[in-house]
């Protein structure tokens, strides 16, 4: 019995224990026969002697790091900067706030009263490769918390239940006149609906430029995330039966385009709009202009005119609307920032490396003697 008891004591030696019979595991197990030593194991882990690397940050030890960073960053920066500079970009603000602007007349347009204006511009340089046509909005808070939430992904994914009974998140753009709105929510309701057309003016003749409207959305969005409701047949009108259009829209969702694979929820303009921008100044891909052949640049230098069906009101919140033509590179659109940043940081590091070298040279020796009175 005594042996039993002392075994219990041993088990109780854990600090959090100590309940049970007092003195738990204090002075060895009483009359127990076998003497078990409590000596801790002499292992590297338990004795905290694991092999370790102990870097000491001194000028001498970190010198190489600074030089290496400098030497790597500067070339990268130059590369990025050059690439960015090679990108052609042309931007027109067509908001029409200036009285001289042709679109000034449309400034106070409302959703349902279309207004058209035409802006002529000249490209100084030709755009050699494929050109991406964007519309840009400024001061437009597509990242507003309630705005971002105001959508129903299930509905957009073609879920029939959500189609007729959209999520509450869509309030107050969930139903209109007791009919569910498809697509519901504030994002869809505020979809950009200006129409832009580009003409090349060649000796006073306007040649329309082919704008491709497919292939502007993410493949996954178009094929996975967004789907039209399913049902009998492919007639979208029937499938969207019982729903109503968003308040601001002139026509329902199934009439966004004539082509069936670009209509309804899988309309690419719609998909692009639904991907809410991160910052209040943003651009969204509107159309593609493909290079036709290898002999001609996609957009030659010269005069062009932009026809705008001005529907989208931005003046009320001091927004701006832009049309941007841009080629892209492997790193996306034109943005000199990153290149400059790399070059700057690289240079700073290199400079610091030199400073540290100097410091190391001057104070390093004293350092190794580890004997500096404060």
């Amino acid at each position: 019995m005594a042996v039993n008891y002392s075994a219990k004591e041993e088990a109780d030696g854990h600090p959090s224990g100590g309940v049970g019979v007092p003195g738990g595991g204090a002075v060895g197990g009483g009359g127990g026969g076998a003497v078990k030593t409590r000596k801790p194991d002499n292992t590297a882990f338990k004795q905290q002697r694991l092999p370790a690397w102990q870097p000491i940050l001194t000028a001498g030890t970190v010198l190489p790091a600074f030089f290496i960073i400098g030497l790597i960053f500067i070339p990268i920066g130059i590369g990025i900067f050059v690439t960015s500079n090679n990108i052609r970009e042309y931007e027109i603000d067509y908001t029409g706030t200036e009285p001289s602007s042709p679109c000034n007349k449309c400034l106070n347009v409302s959703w349902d009263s279309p207004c058209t204006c035409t802006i002529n511009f000249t490209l100084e340089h030709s755009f050699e490769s494929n050109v991406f046509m964007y519309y840009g909005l400024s001061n437009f808070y597509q990242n507003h918390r309630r705005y971002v939430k105001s959508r129903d992904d299930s509905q957009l994914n073609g879920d029939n239940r959500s189609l007729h009974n959209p999520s509450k998140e869509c309030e107050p753009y969930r139903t209109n006149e007791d009919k569910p709105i498809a697509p519901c929510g504030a994002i869809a309701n505020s979809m950009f609906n200006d129409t832009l057309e580009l003409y090349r003016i060649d000796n006073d003749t306007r040649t329309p430029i082919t704008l491709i409207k497919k292939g502007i959305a993410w493949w996954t969005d178009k094929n996975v995330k967004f789907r039209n409701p399913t049902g009998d047949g492919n007639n979208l009108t029937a499938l969207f039966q019982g729903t109503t259009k968003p308040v601001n829209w002139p026509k329902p969702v199934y009439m966004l385009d004539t082509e069936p694979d670009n209509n309804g929820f899988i309309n690419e303009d719609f998909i692009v709009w639904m991907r809410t921008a991160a910052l209040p100044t943003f651009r969204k891909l509107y159309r593609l202009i493909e290079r036709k052949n290898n002999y001609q640049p996609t957009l030659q230098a010269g005069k062009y005119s932009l026809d705008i069906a001005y529907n989208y009101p931005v003046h009320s919140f001091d927004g701006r609307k832009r049309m941007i033509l841009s080629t892209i590179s492997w790193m996306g659109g034109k943005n000199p920032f990153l290149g400059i940043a790399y070059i700057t940081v690289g240079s700073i590091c290199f400079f610091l490396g030199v400073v540290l070298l100097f410091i190391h040279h001057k104070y390093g020796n004293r350092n190794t003697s580890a004997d500096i009175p404060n």
Partner: protein
Amino acid sequence: MSQGTAGGEGAPQVLPEGKERQRRGRRRKKKESKTRLVRSSLLLPEAEPEKSKRTVLACNQLKTTKYTALSFLPKNLFEQFHRLANVYFVFIALLNFVPAVNAFQPELALAPVLFILAVTAIKDLWEDYSRYRSDKEINHMECLVYSRNEKKYISRYWKEVKVGDFVQLRCNEIIPADILLLSSSDPDGLCHIETANLDGETNLKQRQVVRRFLELDSEFDPLKFTSVIECEKPNNDLSRFRGYIIHESGKRDGLFKENLLLRGCTIRNTEEVAGIVIYAGHETKALLNNNGPRYKRSKLERQMNADVLWCVLILLIMCLFSAIGHGLWVWQYGEKKKPIFDVPGPDGKYLSPVLASMYLFLTVIIVFQVLIPISLYVSIEIVKICQVYFIHQDKDLYDEETDSQLQCRALNITEDLGQVQFIFSDKTGTLTENKMVFRRCTVSGIEYSHDDNAKRLAMYQEPDSEEEEAAPKGGTLSQRDSICSHQSIKVIHRSQSTKTHRRTGSRAEAKRASILSKHTAFSSPMEKDIMPDPRLLEKVNECAKHLEVMRSHEQPLSYLSPELCDVFDFFIALTICNTVVVTAPNQPRQKVRDRFELKSPVKTIEDFIRRFTPSRLTSGSNSSSSSSLATSKSMHRFGLSVLSSTSTDSTLLKLEEKLAYSAQMNNNGYSSQQGRTAGAGAPEEGELRYEAESPDEAALVYAARAYNCSLVGRLSDQVSVELPHLGTLSFEVLHTLGFDSVRKRMSVVVRHPLTDEINVYTKGADSVVMDLLLPCSSDDPRGKHQKKIRSKTQNYLNLYAVDGLRTLCIAKRVLSKEEYGCWLKAHLEAESSIENREELLFQSALRIEKNLHLLGATGIEDRLQDGVPETIASLRKAGLQIWVLTGDKQETAVNIAYACKLLDHDEEIITLNAESPNFQETCAVLLEQCLQCVESKFSNNTIDGATGNMTVGFTPLYPPSSSVLSSLGLVIDGRTLAYALEPALEDKFLALAKRCRSVLCCRSTPLQKSMVVKLVRDKLKAMTLAIGDGANDVSMIQVADVGVGISGQEGMQAVMASDFAIPRFRHLEKLLLVHGHWCYSRLANMVLYFFYKNAMFVALLFWYQFYCGFSGSSMIDQWYLIFFNLFFSSLPQLITGVLDKDVPAEVLIAVPQLYKSGQNMEEYQPHMFWMNMIDAMYQSLVCFFIPYFTYYDSEVDIFSWGTPITTIALFTIILHLAIETKTWTFLHWSSCIFSIVLFFFVALVYNASCPVCHPPSNPYWTMERLMGDPMFYFTCIISPVVALLPRFLYRTLQGTLFPTQLQLGRQLSKLSPETRTQLLTKLNGKETMCQTQLFADSFFPSLGSNASDSYKADNQSTPLPTSPQTRESFFQEHAKAEHKPDQTAAASPQGALLYEGNKLPSSASSLERSMGFHEVRCGTAEVESLPVGTTFPWSSAVDQADFSLLKWITSTPLFSHIGTVLQVSSSSLQNETQDSMCVLGSSLQVDFKGLKEESSNNLQDKTKGTPTDHCKNDNSETTFL
């Protein structure tokens, strides 16, 4: 007793108590009734079904679990919500369910809170389960309980034992409940129990059968037990039990703690006992005493909590800012022209700006909640548990001798170990071994020095040191080879070490043996084998011969010469005046039985008795006639009725009979023993073992045995002593007046078998015993002689104390029968009283312990523990101030303090002893004066001499020469301390004490100890550590911030009260310097990092608010946001928090100064929090704006932009940790890599899993797409680099240009061992210089004013020795110093010198001279600060120091003032310096140690001779220099 009320407990008490029992383990606050009634359960009626409930209530089942399966969830949650943070987080999570303000998917927001709660709950559950298991094991132990049906004892589980049950216990069984002892197989009705489980004391304690049941002739039969026991309610006082047993006849007997067997103790030495259960289960005293680990909050945690509050404030400011911003943002669009992206409420109406901002405030609280680190508390808990684990596992904190290791009892104050500023230490058992060795004695004024004994002890010491050298060798061997076969090496090592032990027969082996067998407490060969002093031995023999002759010739004892008489009595007193129990090892725990049968009485003695007894009877007092003490059996049997009734003739007659009987018994014992000794006595004697409650008792008994006066048996009423020639004498013990700390003595009242006189032998502290001596008139020659003896003894006592011995005085008193009778009457009353029993007994003891006759005194050595001086030196170097609080007498304490280097011979000692009658004022004046003295030393002002009738022993024993230039030691005794601790004086006392390097409080009571600690803790706001081993240290241990118990000799009370228990004092060094430092630095860094991490992450979101109309939107996906802290970034910091080592252990030990970083809170200062916050802001700005500019005006969507930011933040955070991590093991690497991989893995899986599942965020395929985008990588590379550049640069520059001590220490560890030793010595030299510099600072108010805290602290520890001296005397001194450039050179207080020099910058010559002098000082200091014993080339050290010192001096601010003068004299100075250095170096090289000792001894003697007033001392100081 009527059947109706007979129950397990008295019926009225059952119900209320039952209710109370619901709250198990809690202290019972209300007392419905003051007592409890216990009746035999056998009287209970048979029909029990309806009583089953009651049975449950009264049973012995142990239940320490907090929860049941059903109550776990609600109860645990309820407990967790006591923590404010949890409530906060749950509140925020619930806020998410409110649609107007929600920021995340509500269910998801609950996840982290639930996770945290679950982790804690699982931990609690696990703990509870292990408690349940251990409970079950205990509950199912078996014991014998009397069964009514079977009419015998049958085996039952412990949990089935009920109050009122009868339990039978056998030898070596553990007591299942608190049991009232009713029967014992021992004829005396005694029972021995071992209380090691309760208090760790391994000696046996006697328990006694309740009086009336002793008288039962037949075997105790539970069925016949009809008495009712009325006793106290269950309480946790182990040392008290009071109650009555009410017999059927209506008579009452008192019950005392001697009748109670406590649960958890073990029955020893007794074959069989039986008793009735009084308290069961949780009401037993053992369990009521058991309150689990305490919860202390560490200093770091308090600081951290303050910073958490700052975080809350920052959070609120951020939220307020966002809310106002949003209000403005909404307002700017006006009422009419609402933008299309501003979504109206569900009802289609827009919120007003004010309302919108109010809603937003709540929303952003949710979004920014991460700023208050949810996982902080959990992480800290995890880290601390791991730290505790590692401290546990440290083999350096394991003591092989006792097979014990460090125990952490408080889990949450590990980091406090790294910040300790004051150590309060007990002396006995903490600094010393608490193994008493008899060293010397003095009997009737003649000293017996026991030289052989000293030699023997020296021999013990040698093997010990030899062994110590051997042990580490073995250790390193096994360490080195541990890679291959660690197990076998260990075996070899063990066998090796045992071999060493056997060869040397060392103390260590003996101790181990004693631990293993555990049969003897406090005995080692060192204590046992005592070489008797030949002179004394001769006297003893002579004395014994005389006695024998006298006895055979029927001569009275008085013919013996007084000296021999004293010698005889002295040894008798040593032998019997104690509570030592004798055991024979062959039958462990079996008492040596010396019951003697009645045989024919010896005539001579019988005559004594005949003459003795009638006189007693004629004295008239019936109570006086009872010779046996209250605890003696004979009195119970015969004398009880006599005592209770009035004196009648018949009873007197009976009494006479009885007394004759008892006397016969004694005589028989005496005679029968005589025959026995011849045969078996001699060989058996060596086998006897003594078990004592305190080690010095055992030491004394062993010492007496060395003089052939050995204790052979002890029963409750008699002690058998074996004497040379006389054989065995049996002393009838009438009373034992136990030791208590107030009386500081113990006495036994015995009847002397030879003279039949009643003798009182008293043994106690000299200070008390000396006062109790019989006043002797100086007229008569005998009295003169006595006086002489006394003064001689007092002298020897002082001498012993100087040697650091514990002194005890032995005295005797012969009582006349009348005196005894008078006293006995009162004493018996006191004993039988129930209220105030202790107080009355105390008074009674005071009455008998007076008019003593001094026999002699003993000196017992309490050896220092291994490594104590080194540990103290090292701890002191670490900036710890060590106070020793001891109950010992001043001289002993001071000498131990010198022995363990607590006081230095070159320190000035201030002794505070208020001896005048009006203590209070004296004390005040005393303190005032000392303070003035000390302060004058700082300010160099002269003060007037002190007047008054007190002694201010201002004894500069030796002028300062060590690295700490001059230091003060304060010695204060208990009486003075009592007044110094009064509110009016405590400030002054503290002001004085904190200027002293070490403080020694002697003669202090436990309460005073705790008051001192409390005073320092509260007034100085310092971190205190108390270390002790005994019950008297408990209060101090509990009061201190960190309580350390030494699991040593004196039981477990200290350990139970402590936060950490270590086997030896020397382990404190590693515990504090290494583990304390590590824990502190790890945790401090982790906490700071935590704040940084969360602030940095939240700031990202905050910056985003500027670009989303302050709408509370977040670009970081809610999943990342919520789990970032919990999963992605938690592991590396935990690993770093557990394993990072800023400086390796060897360096921390070698350079104790590094510990100061913890004391000064260098790792976590308030400004560091803000620096980290600013850094976090900067880093978050970088991490936000680089992606911002990169993706400005692009087609990027929220999450495609937010995900890179998250990634960047993760990289930055982990790299930041990498910069802060000092030691990289594979665990660090893998945790960092794991975190990053985990993030990408989770992101990829999450982004690919489901396109519509996680509204409102819809990050489908984002990560996949990003990883195909080169811009993502470019952003992720540059941002962390830019973010961390400043910190990295700062760390680098700081490490290069202004390295902290810790960084230097780290660099030190990288060097080769040889260079390291060299540098270490140099570093020590540097320390000296730093301190010298501090002196300069302190003399310059302008410089001193902006000195940092650490400087100030150093100043305190290095007070200036400058006494008011004139310049002339100064240079006089200086001249002398030049003549003999040894230590004396260091004598002059350099500070004063500098001061002087500064005042007179024009006197170039004097300055030059003084400068030279100064050099000598520093040089000395440096050399001396080298560890003695290292084989370091002295001369080279001096050379090195030489130039560094010169360099330093020219750069000192002090000298920049007088730089021009210095320039002039510097060249000559250098020459002079070098010269003196050489001389110094060589002289030191030759005989450094000897020189120092010699001179210090001389000086000490001198000073002793002239203990003068302070002002006189100033003069004397100069004269003896």
